Structures are given as structure tokens and as C-alpha cells.
């Protein structure tokens, strides 16, 4: 608790009569990879949406580095150091990889009321963007259009974009969605390399990948967190077996 | 205050409101269900007036004019849906704007080629040309007929939307399109029918107004904007919203045009009031729209369950 970067207390969200998340309590330690798992429709994406500011919770609070951010807009949270990626790839396809990442650098470095100087000639920004691309291994594709690279590479670009925002906490919504085995392995390496430097909260379906890289897991079922623990303990947790793993592996 | 004048103005406002409702009911359904913006909806209004006028000139019967006019506009609407609109439901709104703007040019020119550049007057049968007096109040029969027809259509639409299977699909489609598709409904036929009924409503509005103003080229291009405002104020996809918003806007527009100078004269000198009033009353409807958008962006009566 002492070194939590993100503290969620009593988060509640319903749409009309449908409850999406109910009394969710969760904390992410500084420097850890924390994964949220749970069956389809458990409310994982709704939870990420509330954390990133896309949806406003009905009640409960979200504290980031000790500061209450529950009512901040998505843009303000991003500037505060909380970066999210999207489950459905939402890189800007008609722009190059570099341009995509530069937008991220731009978004978190001051205002954008620059009307005259071309960004391409801003060395500081291109350098920062190239650095992020290098971290995910896409530096040699910087000038290709995002629409022309493979799905796996678009997912990597998505991570590069979140990194370029220079965040302290990354919210990753299914970073491995739709990836093949090899691509997934590559992504796991990329994320593992960030451990210690960045804190990561991620939602993911690929159990092998999660078990391979996460420090702690939280299990979300029907909008409730039923357990939060280390990978080892979750694997052996009977309730989790029943509620979740049992369903899939039975 | 002249009470007779006030009542006449109220009737005029009611009449305008119902005509706006006839135009807006189709528009709002087409927006709500197909997410399609049809700038050329006003062309159906014009085409309806010309169809009706032609039949009246041939047969001398206003009733036949309306009946054949309705069928004619229904067919024109169905053709537009079939050959053009249908291809565009999945493209972006800019494409809708361009194509339907093109359709306006096409319809306006076709009417010009067929019926000539000057307008077409539609004579009324003597029965409708008279006046009805109630006490000291004298009201033109035809205007009462327009109001009755407008209310009749509103009632018809109400029954259609709330009591029939087609209506159920329309309501479902306006609030959640994917659900209707998931129900395995023949979505193409539903769209075709909604589009053509919407066109007929607009056509009917044109037929009803033409004996007063005469049918003319481009007659739909001004009123269509106010119909858009009605749709926005009422809430996209909501027939009920179109009805109330139509009446509110019809009344506000008519009454502010006739009484705003008097109201303003209470607080500012009469000569300024007389200069400012026309300008302000021209803006009235749009100011109402801005206010509604500021406080209820989804409109006054959004369809139940809409996003």
C-alpha cells in the first residue's frame, strides 16, 4: 500500500440496470506489471475506460500518485502521466509510424497552438519519437504508413505511442489481441523490458503470456474483483479455479 | 389587444407547425434509422406539390390530386432510396451531403424542364375556399383543413409507430440499429418503406401548402432548414419529438414575427423596436435550437433507449 502508484476504491459503474463494475478495489504498486484477467463480459474494458477517463464512474475514487483523478478528463489524465492503449487498434492509418508516435510526444509536451514551424523539423520531437520506436523494435519502419504494416506491428506501434507519452503508468487494453504466437512472444519481451522503469496495468486474455510476465494478478468476474494475488497463489486459488479457470479449462 | 388577430396568428402558427411536422417526421426517421442525411427531402415537398397540381388541372378534383400525389411521391421516394440512398448508408456523411445536394439540382432542373420556370397555382374547390365563422371570429376553411389533415396524419403515424409491427421495427431501429439487423428483419425493405413513407409525408406538406403559395421551383429549399431545426430540437429519430418541436417552432416563429415589436416596445423606443424586431424574430428559431443544444444535446424527446 505504501508504494502504490494507482489506488482504486469502491469503483461502481452501471448502465441503466446493467452493472458493469461493482465495488472494485485495486492498487498497482510502483514498477510492477499487474494483470487483470476474467471471462468475457466481466467488465474489464469498462474498468479500463473508467481508469483512462473515457467513462465516468457512478461512485468510487481513483487516486494516481496520491492525487484524486476521478473527475479529470481523459486528456488531463494523459498529461498527468497515465497512458492507455486501445483494445481495437486505433493508430492513425494514413500517417507514418513516426508521425503517429510524434503526435503522442506532442500531446504530452505542452500545448499545440504552434501555427508555423513544421514538426518534422523539430529535432527534439523526432528524437523522442524515434527512441520510443526503437524500444519496440520498429525504428527501421519509421517512415512507413501505419496502414501498411502488419497487425502485430500495429500493436507494437500502439505500445510505442503509449511509451512516447512518457507515462509513469501504462494502461494496456489487451496488447496481444489478435496476435500469433511469435508476435505475442515478442510483445512479452518488450513489456518485460519495461519492468521496474514503468508501472503497467494490463487486461489480457492470453493466460500463458500473463503468467509469464505479470507480478500480480487480479481476477474480475461479473464486475467484482474476487482475488488479487501473485501469479503462483492465483494459480492455486480454488475460488478462481472454479469461477474462471475452471470454466475455460474444463 | 386584438383577440381575433391573436387567434388567427395562433392558427397560422399551428398550421406552420404541422407542415413542419410532416416534413420533419420523415427526416427524423431517416436520420435515426439509416443515419442518412437527406438534403433533398425538400425536393419531395416540391414534387408533391407539382404532382398534385397536375392532377387537379387534369381532373379538377383536389381529392384525386392528393391521392395520386401521395402515390407519386411514394414511388419517387422509393426510386431514390433504391438507386441512390441505399448505396450510401455505409459511406460517410460528407458523401450524403454531396449526393443529396446533387439530387436537389437534378430535381429542381427536372421540374423546370417538365413544368417550366414559373410557378403553378392550384385552384381550390369552392367548398374549401370559403370561411367559417364562429361568433365574431372568421377563419378560412382551407386553413382549418390543413390543421385537421396535419393532426390526422400525426394520429395515423402515432398508431403506425406504436401499434403495428412495422412501427415496432421503426422504433427499435431508431434506438438500436444493430438489434434490428440481428432480429433477421429484411432491413433493405424496412429502409425502403421508411424512406418512401417519409417522402410521402413531405410531399403531402407540399400539396397542402401549394394552394396557398403555389408550387414553385426550390420551394422546399428554405423550409427544409427549419425542418432540420425541428429534428434537432425534437431529438433525432423521434416522431413524437418532431411533432412537439414542430408545433413549438411553428408557433414561436409566427408569433414572434407578429408580436415581437410590441413586446420590445415595452422596454425600448418604438422606432428601434420596429427595426430590431424583424431581425430578432428571424433568429428566434435558431436561438431556440442553440439553447436546446446547450442544455439537452440529444433533443427534447430523444427516442427511448437511444445512445
Amino acid at each position, binding site marked *: 500500500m505504501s508504494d502504490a502508484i494507482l489506488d482504486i476504491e469502491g469503483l461502481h459503474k452501471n448502465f441503466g440496470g446493467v452493472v458493469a463494475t461493482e465495488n472494485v478495489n485495486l492498487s498497482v504498486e510502483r514498477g510492477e506489471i499487474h494483470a487483470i484477467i476474467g471471462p468475457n463480459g466481466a467488465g474489464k474494458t469498462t474498468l479500463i475506460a473508467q481508469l483512462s477517463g473515457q467513462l465516468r464512474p457512478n461512485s468510487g475514487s481513483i487516486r494516481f500518485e496520491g492525487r484524486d483523478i476521478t473527475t479529470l478528463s481523459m486528456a488531463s489524465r494523459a498529461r498527468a502521466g497515465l497512458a492507455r492503449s486501445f483494445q481495437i487498434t486505433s493508430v492513425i492509418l494514413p*500517417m507514418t509510424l513516426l508521425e503517429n508516435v510524434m503526435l503522442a510526444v506532442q500531446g504530452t509536451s505542452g500545448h499545440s497552438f*504552434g501555427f508555423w*514551424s513544421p514538426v518534422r523539423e523539430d529535432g527534439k520531437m523526432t528524437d523522442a519519437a524515434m527512441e520510443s520506436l526503437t524500444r519496440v523494435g520498429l525504428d527501421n519502419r519509421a517512415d512507413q504508413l501505419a496502414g501498411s504494416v502488419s497487425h502485430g506491428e500495429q500493436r507494437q506501434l500502439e505500445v510505442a505511442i503509449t511509451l512516447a*507519452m512518457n507515462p509513469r503508468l501504462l494502461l494496456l487494453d489487451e496488447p496481444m489481441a489478435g496476435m500469433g504466437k511469435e508476435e505475442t512472444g515478442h510483445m512479452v519481451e518488450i513489456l518485460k523490458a519495461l519492468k521496474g522503469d514503468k508501472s503497467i496495468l494490463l487486461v489480457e486474455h492470453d493466460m500463458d503470456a500473463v503468467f509469464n510476465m505479470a507480478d500480480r494478478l487480479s481476477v474480475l468476474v461479473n464486475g467484482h474483483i474476487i482475488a488479487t494475488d501473485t501469479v503462483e497463489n492465483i494459480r492455486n486459488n480454488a475460488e478462481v479455479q472454479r469461477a474462471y479457470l475452471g470454466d475455460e479449462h474444463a | 389587444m386584438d383577440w381575433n388577430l391573436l387567434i388567427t396568428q395562433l392558427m397560422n402558427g399551428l398550421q406552420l407547425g404541422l407542415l413542419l411536422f410532416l416534413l420533419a417526421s420523415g427526416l427524423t426517421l431517416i436520420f435515426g434509422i439509416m443515419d442518412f442525411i437527406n438534403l433533398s427531402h425538400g425536393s419531395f415537398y416540391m414534387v408533391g406539390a407539382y404532382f398534385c397540381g397536375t392532377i387537379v388541372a387534369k381532373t379538377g378534383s383536389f381529392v384525386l390530386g392528393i391521392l395520386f400525389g401521395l402515390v407519386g411521391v411514394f414511388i419517387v421516394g422509393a426510386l431514390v432510396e433504391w438507386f441512390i440512398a441505399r448505396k450510401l448508408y455505409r459511406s460517410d456523411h460528407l458523401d450524403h451531403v454531396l449526393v443529396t445536394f446533387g439530387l436537389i*439540382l437534378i430535381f429542381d432542373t*427536372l421540374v423546370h424542364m417538365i413544368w417550366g420556370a414559373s410557378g403553378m397555382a392550384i385552384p381550390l374547390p369552392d367548398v374549401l375556399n370559403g370561411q367559417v365563422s364562429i361568433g365574431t371570429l372568421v377563419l378560412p376553411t382551407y386553413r382549418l383543413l390543413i390543421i385537421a389533415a396535419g393532426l390526422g396524419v400525426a394520429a395515423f403515424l402515432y398508431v403506425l409507430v406504436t401499434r403495428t409491427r412495422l412501427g415496432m421495427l421503426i422504433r427499435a431501429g431508431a434506438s438500436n440499429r444493430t438489434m434490428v439487423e440481428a432480429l433477421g428483419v429484411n432491413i433493405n425493405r424496412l429502409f425502403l418503406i421508411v424512406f418512401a413513407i417519409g417522402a410521402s409525408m413531405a410531399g403531402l406538406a407540399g400539396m397542402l401548402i401549394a394552394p396557398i403559395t403555389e408550387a414553385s421551383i426550390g420551394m422546399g429549399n428554405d423550409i427544409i432548414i427549419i425542418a432540420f431545426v425541428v429534428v434537432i430540437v425534437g431529438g433525432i429519430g423521434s416522431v413524437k419529438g418532431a411533432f412537439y418541436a414542430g408545433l413549438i417552432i411553428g408557433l414561436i416563429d409566427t408569433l414572434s414575427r407578429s408580436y415581437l415589436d410590441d413586446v420590445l416596445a415595452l422596454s425600448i423606443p418604438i422606432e428601434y423596436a420596429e427595426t430590431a424586431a424583424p431581425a430578432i424574430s428571424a433568429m428566434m428559431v435558431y436561438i431556440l435550437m*442553440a439553447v436546446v443544444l446547450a442544455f439537452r444535446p440529444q433533443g427534447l424527446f430523444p427516442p427511448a433507449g437511444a445512445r
Partner: protein
Amino acid sequence: MQLLSTRRGLFYTALLVFLAIAPWVFQWIDQPFYLDLLSRALILGIAAVSLNLILGYGGMVSLGHAAYIGIGAYCVGIPAYYDFYSGWLHIGLALSVSAVFALITGAICLRTKGVYFIMITMAFSQMVYYTFLSLEEYGADDGLVIYLRSEFPTWLSMDGAFSLYYWILGVLLLSLYFVHRLIHARFGRVIVGAKFNELRLQSLGVNTYRYRLTCYVISAMICSLAGVLLGNFTSFISPEMMGWTRSGELIFMVIMGGVSTVLGPLLGTISFVLLEEWLAAITVYWHLIFGVLLVVLVLYGKGGLDGLLGLMDRGKKSS
């Protein structure tokens, strides 16, 4: 820009050179009417460039841009009615009135999306139209005659067809260059990004609403300059120049030329004006041809004329 290395580049270079010497060419062949036609096309070109900024680059489909042409024109006409002819006054007034009106209406429009945005921009422009239509003092639907052109220091004078033409060309080139810089600067990147994925931009820490609103205001101000020039060019202004069908024509021009390319809108307006002139001479039913053209253009011809030039280049490379 590789101006001379592609057919498209060559074409635009030739076009710009021609525009620079056009008045002398027309004088030489003794066709002053052509200069009128070209002046009108270039004025519409300025409006199209401004519309392209929000529509092409920003993805904001405004069906009310003609209102800003009207506001600009009345900012010449109304002062002139009271015998104020200072050109700086006219321009200053046009820029500030259009900015304020765009700020207020844009603040409302930009909270909405899709069909709402289109209809609301249209409704507000129609509000301006009806307001001027009801102002008896300024001629209502009869319009206003402007007896003298806006006054500037001698070296900048607008008097005479040549000087006015070069004024128009100057404003056009400045707007084109400004939009070009804008789009590649920080501001423009955000605008273009938000067109494709607004949510993404917000997730990157960008308050897209503020930038789009600013963009909308800038576009309106550029467009009002087209109005100032149009008022001076026609010496007569009326509400008719800002009816919503005018806005529709403007969109047509932008699309015809090719959206989100710097010079496309200019190409579009020149073609539109020439085509209009040519077709109107052939048949009174020329609107029909325009209508069919629009429908066909959308259903089959993506990319506009500029895209066609690009296709020629691609064809050249592959052959």
C-alpha cells in the same frame, strides 16, 4: 514539394505562373471578361481553401461556410453605406466579426458530431441569411450597392481590375501558404489526427475540442476575407450570396478539386467557375449536369481532380 519532378507538380507550377501573368495575357488577347471570370474563381478559391482547412484536413463538414463570405461582404457594405471606406477598417471588421460569430456558433456546433454538426452549421448560416434578409435598412433582399472600393494607400490600391486581381491573388497565395504551414505545424498535426481518431488524440493528452474550435475560427476568418474581396469585386451585395445552397456549392468545389491537398480546392473552384460558364452558355438546364456530375463523382470518382493528376503520375511510374 517536388514542383517540377511530377506531372502534378509541373501542372501546378504552370498554373501559378499563368495566374501571375493572366491579366496581361487577357489584355493582350483583348478578353477583359476572362479576367472577371478568373477574379471570381480566385475569390471562391480563397473561400474553398478556408473550407478545406476544416472539411478536408479537420473532417468537419460545415454546410454553412457561405455565411462567412456574407459576413465579410457586409463588413464592406455596411460601413460603405455610412461612407466609411477605409480598407483596413473593412478587413479588421470582417476578421473580428467572423471570428466572434465562429467562436460562438462553433462552440455549440463542435459539441456535436456527424449529422448534427452538418445540420447545425447549416442552421446557423441560415440564421445569418434571414437576419440580413430582414434588415430593411440595409436593403433586405434587394441588397446594397457599394459605390467605391475599399481605400488603401496608393501602392496597395484596389482600384482598377488589375489591382483588384492582384489583391485577390495575393490574399489567395497568402492563405494557401498559411494553411500549408499550419497543417505541418503542431496545430495542424492535431487537427489532422483528430479527423481520423478523436478518441486517440484525447488519450494522448490533447483537448481536441479547443483545437478544433480554433481551427473553425481561423477558417471562418480566412473565408471572411473572400467576402471582403467579393464585395469589392461585385460592388453589390445581397443575402443571396450566403444562402445554404452557396455553401453546398463550396463543398462541391472543394471535393471536385480534391480534399486535404493544398492546391486541390483552387483547382476545384477554377474548374467549377469555368464549367458553370461553359454549361450555362449551352443550356439553361446546366444545373442538371452539375447534379449528375456530383452524384457520379461521389459514387465513382474518389480523390477529385487532384487525385486524377496523381493517378497520371502513378501511371507514368508503372509504365
